[in-house]
């Protein structure tokens, strides 16, 4: 249920940006969420519908770009997508890796009127 505070933070951020732009309405919010964060898009949507009521973001569409977890193998140097329950390099089967994607949690852009 960290989605509740994450959605609240996201909404505050969006409303702040919209206010700066003197917008009257927020039509769309483009989010980027990495798989590793464990943030569930449906939950964000659920909380958003509730939290945004009475704000200029009420009714805004949420577009969520999900980023899969990716790692670079420290042994063979190859880049690969980490599969659930398989944290090994598919090329050399090493398990020494640097995570390069999947931790994203940001607002990419908003569309306002």
């Amino acid at each position, binding site marked *: 249920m960290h989605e509740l505070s994450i959605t609240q933070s996201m909404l505050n*951020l969006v409303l702040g940006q919209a206010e700066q732009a003197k917008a009257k309405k927020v039509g769309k919010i483009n989010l980027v969420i990495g798989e590793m964060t464990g943030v569930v898009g449906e939950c964000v949507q659920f909380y958003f519908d509730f939290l945004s009521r009475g704000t200029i973001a009420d009714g805004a569409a949420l577009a969520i770009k999900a980023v899969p977890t990716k790692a670079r193998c420290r042994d063979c140097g190859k880049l690969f997508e980490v599969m659930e329950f398989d944290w090994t390099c598919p090329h050399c089967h090493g398990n020494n890796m640097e995570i390069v994607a999947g931790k994203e949690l940001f607002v990419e852009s908003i569309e306002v009127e």
Partner: protein
Amino acid sequence: MEIKVVKDILDANERIAQRNQKLFDANNLFAVNLMSSPGAGKTSLILQTLKSLKGKIGIGVIEGDVSSSLDAEAIGREGVSVVQINTAGGCHLDANMLSIALDSVPLGDIRLLFIENVGNLICPAEFSLGEHRRVLISSIPEGDDKPFKYPLMFHTVDAVLINKIDLLPYLKFDIDAFSQTIKGMNQKVKIFPVSCTSGQGIEKWVSWLLSQMRNPV
């Protein structure tokens, strides 16, 4: 009209966390964010650590719980400064909750602050509090598959304590495979097998902790 934002959603939390850390540094105080699933032994570890360090350095504890003050009472009986945060349903501590609790902590009297987070392997991983070190307790009864299930948590901590090793004869848990998985995800991590019941391994953990306090950042 489209507005480019590209801002971390937890930016506001991060800013308060940085303010907390400045406050710690100004008071020459080392803060440890202690995380685990419920019942893994956070309070027991604090009690064991107090046994080793009480009288040597000033220690303070902030207890985060959804409800009750049972843990704070247990710590308070040891005569150290303790502040309870009840999150009233919230599944993690955030930097702002901590910031408010810090008003009740005698910062000048303590050198080491344990922040016991809410028992949870998901949400606390996301919310920085301004701590100097992030420490996770994983316990033998939880099973050795937890790094696969909660990779963000295992990826972001400085140390993992494997607690309840006194139960190894009774439960299936491959410490070597577990340690190797964590180290694969997180090269810097230190691993300490301990038992908060028997005190086994606590000495190594405490000496690591003291070594970190000399180089806090």
